[in-house]
């Protein structure tokens, strides 16, 4: 589904990513771990199009996407969340999700101006879908609250709901459990498994090994921009290179 | 139609000095606050009029001032200090309340316009809208003899002062503790205050220096062109903007180089016979620079600064 070939990203001579190779098979949940500053977020940025690799190829479903603009990548079926939550704080929870459905709407300015029946139908359809998504993440009760006022956990969940609103085939989750307690983390793990069950491929960047163990089929380990190991979660944990990379590290 | 190249070079050089002098303060405020301070041109006019009042006293209100009450070497520093104080007051009134609550830059731009309108109109109420000048002979104005080109002492003075202040400012920013503090504040206000920098005082100092530079520029304009009105800053304001964009927003050397470059473009578009679209060249350059290289000639990558 997603293949990265020799992807490098340099910032003014400093290599954030170096010849990264990665294969994410269709329908799997793949973990991406590594110490802070290993280049995990840069990698996600390159896949989602916010950043482009200095060299190498990123192929999604047979289509090279490393030089595409982000909105076109999203249209192909890639969606993501952010490590530091980036919601539209001045919009309501519901509106955040509806914005996420942008590519599935067709109504234009003229439609809405002349109150085309088509526009109403589309609006109510989008709203229904969005509410369903909110229910799925248990935040339906705060649908009409400004996103900026939501609790931290709800904001995290809303971000995932919004990512799913684009109806992606591949979801990139950037530390979805940061700042969550064990119970919340576990619930989130179940949400990820539900996505998996729906046939969505997931790449999840995490520090929480419990979650990785809970959801991932395969784990990649990134250290100083280089992919140092990959394999099943249990196997990777034993890998001496990984232990070395994490030496002295809490996780 | 041949061109008097040496004379036009002199024209360009000293006009460049004036533009740079005006743009220095503009650039300083931008580098520290990331703020376009459109009241800079009003402070500039204030400087000129503080100078005039120091030089002539109450006489300026009634008639044309005919002789200096105080020597010129007192008048210039007085204008600089006066403009500096005005500049700090503008900061306190127009920017500080907004900065305190992290208002959008756009609001600060508008409040700087409000401050400019207030200042310029106050000047008009006190001094009238008609043009004023420094007394004849405030500074020797006869061309330096024995040269193939016409160049007057005031032109040389303006150039020397512009370059001198530029070097002084450069040393201040790069070498001194104050300069370090300014750069830290410019980088990140919160980090600076965590590092023990008195952020507010740094802003005040920056505004004072910028104001003093504007005051010096105002004095040089007043002395050189003998035509001061409360509105004298208006036409320079946009030129100054072009200058700092060309040089690189917030870069001090950039402001100077930009100043000379803009002056050269203006003078030579006139010299080549297109004085009617002289300003079009300037703004076209501004436009192209922004599209091609938004950080200007010497600017660092401060793309996301506002």
């Amino acid at each position: 589904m997603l293949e990265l070939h020799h992807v490098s990203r340099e910032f003014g001579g400093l290599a954030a990513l170096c010849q990264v190779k990665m294969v994410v098979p269709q329908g799997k949940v793949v973990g991406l771990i590594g110490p802070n500053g290993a280049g995990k977020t840069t990698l996600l940025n390159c896949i989602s199009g916010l950043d482009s690799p200095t060299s190498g190829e990123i192929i999604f479903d047979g289509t090279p996407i490393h030089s595409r603009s982000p909105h076109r990548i999203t249209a192909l079926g890639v969606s993501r969340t952010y490590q530091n939550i980036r919601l539209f704080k001045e919009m309501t929870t519901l509106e955040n999700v509806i914005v996420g459905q942008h590519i599935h709407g067709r109504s234009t300015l003229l439609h809405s101006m002349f109150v085309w029946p088509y526009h109403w139908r589309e609006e109510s359809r989008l709203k229904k879908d969005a509410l369903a998504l909110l229910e799925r993440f248990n935040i339906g009760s705060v649908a009409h609250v400004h996103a900026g006022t939501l609790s931290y956990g709800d904001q995290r969940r809303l971000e995932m709901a919004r990512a799913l609103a684009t109806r992606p085939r591949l979801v990139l989750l950037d530390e979805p459990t940061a700042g969550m307690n064990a119970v919340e983390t576990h619930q989130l793990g179940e949400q990820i498994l539900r996505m998996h069950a729906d046939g969505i491929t997931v790449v999840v960047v995490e520090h929480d090994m419990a979650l990785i163990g809970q959801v991932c089929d395969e784990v990649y380990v990134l250290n100083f921009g280089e992919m140092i190991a990959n394999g099943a979660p249990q196997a990777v944990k034993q890998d001496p290179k990984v232990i070395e990379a994490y030496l002295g590290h809490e996780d | 139609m041949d061109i008097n190249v040496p004379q036009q070079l002199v024209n360009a050089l000293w006009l460049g000095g004036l533009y740079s002098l005006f743009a220095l303060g503009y650039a300083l405020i931008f580098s520290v606050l990331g703020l376009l301070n459109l009241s800079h041109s009003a402070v500039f006019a204030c400087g000129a009029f503080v100078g005039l009042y120091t030089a002539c006293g109450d006489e300026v209100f009634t008639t044309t001032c005919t002789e200096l009450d105080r020597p010129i070497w007192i008048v210039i520093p007085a204008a600089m200090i006066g403009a500096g104080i005005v500049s700090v007051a503008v900061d306190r009134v127009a920017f500080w309340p907004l900065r305190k609550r992290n208002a959008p830059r756009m609001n600060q731009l508008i409040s700087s316009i409000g401050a400019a309108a207030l200042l310029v109109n106050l000047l008009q109420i006190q001094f009238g809208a008609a043009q004023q000048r420094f007394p004849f002979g405030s500074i020797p104005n006869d061309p330096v003899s024995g040269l193939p080109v016409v160049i007057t002492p005031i032109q040389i003075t303006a150039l020397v002062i512009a370059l001198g202040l530029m070097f002084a400012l450069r040393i201040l920013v790069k070498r001194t503790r104050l300069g370090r503090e300014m750069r830290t504040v410019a980088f990140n206000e919160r980090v600076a205050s965590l590092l023990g920098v008195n952020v507010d005082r740094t802003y005040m100092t920056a505004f004072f220096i910028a104001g003093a530079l504007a005051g010096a520029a105002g004095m040089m304009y007043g002395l050189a062109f003998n035509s001061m009105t409360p509105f004298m800053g208006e036409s320079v304001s946009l030129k100054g903007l072009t200058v700092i964009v060309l040089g690189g927003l917030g870069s001090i050397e950039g402001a100077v180089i930009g100043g000379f470059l803009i002056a050269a473009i203006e003078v030579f578009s006139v010299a080549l016979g297109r004085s009617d679209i002289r300003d079009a060249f300037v703004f076209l350059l501004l436009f192209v620079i922004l599209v091609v290289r938004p950080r200007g000639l010497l600017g660092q990558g401060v793309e996301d600064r506002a």
Partner: protein
Amino acid sequence: MKTLIRTIVVLTFALVAVVPFQVQAQDGGGMGAWDGCPVPENLPEEVTIGAVFGLSGNIAAYGEPQKRGVELAVAEINEAGYLGEGTTLIAVFEDGGSDGEASIAAMDKLIAENELAAVIGPTLSAQAFAADPIAAENGVVVLGVSNTAAGLTTMNEDEELDQFIFRNSLPEANVIPNTITKSTEILGLERVGVIYGNDDDFTLSGYDAFADALEASEVEVVRTETFARGDVDFSPQLTNIINDDPDAIVVSALIAEAVPVVLQARQLGYTGPIIGGNGFNSPALFAQGGEAAEGVIVGAAWNIGSPSELSVTFTETFTEAYGAAPDQFAAQAYTGAWLVATAIRCADSADSADVREALAAIVDYPTPLGSFSFDETRNPVHEPVVQIVQEGMFKLLTEETAAQAFGE
């Protein structure tokens, strides 16, 4: 049919206007003692005239002297009882700002809130184009005292509306040909350089007039340069012009730019004549220009050094009242107020329609500007002057003064 009616109306207007008021000043009558019309008897206690001048912003440099000119005239008129015993003339001022919108608002407000005999102003020609139709549509006479743009008094589609629009400011097109012929004659000009402000309607029409007059006088223009309003440095343009070694530099500028142009031309070593238009006609020229202004030739509608009794009295009283010498803006506004008052006196009515007719009938009226009449398109007719700056004063340009200035 419509045209026919209109023609008849216009003709009637013209007839009515000319016949009963064809009066001229008597010999020896100064301003305030004009006995061409009897002392009016039917005027109310208060007669109001409006004035729209730019009093805020940088336009105040022109609007302020205009206001003073009108104030002075009104004070004199009341003191002399010019409108008859028990009748006071009141001038209501309204700030016309510096753009069309503000002048429209000012004119509209003035007319709505006052019963006006006439309006004086607005300051700029562009403002007049915007605001004068409002006065005309309301049947109020408007007298421009500083509008010099071409076609101002014939701006409306409807000629009847035009009948209400007057001006006493001699357009550049009347002043400049005279200036050029006279200075060519006296100084023997053959090649000149021209510099003008190309972003201002006043300086641009000045330039047009200069260009035409120079062509008519067969003077070669070796170089034409432009500047923008608010510019302070003119050395590049002047360097170009001086480099071509012209016999004279012709400048179309307002006083704010005129002074630096003159100063910088002299600084660059140019000693020949500099010729300017109405915009130069301000005491600021030699007050600010000092020695550099010597030898500057100014074609204008009014000469501050004019020996005429009215002009001398005006200059003296103005200087005494305001502590500064009047400029042309003040003189024309002062004259405007007197013209309006005269029309009110002659019409013996404060009704604007009557005032209009009386104003149109003014012929050979003695004013500080000279002997003054309106022509059939309500434009001023009087002799323009050509002056030269000498020893810090305006003097009339003659063979002698020219010889003194340029040592020929």
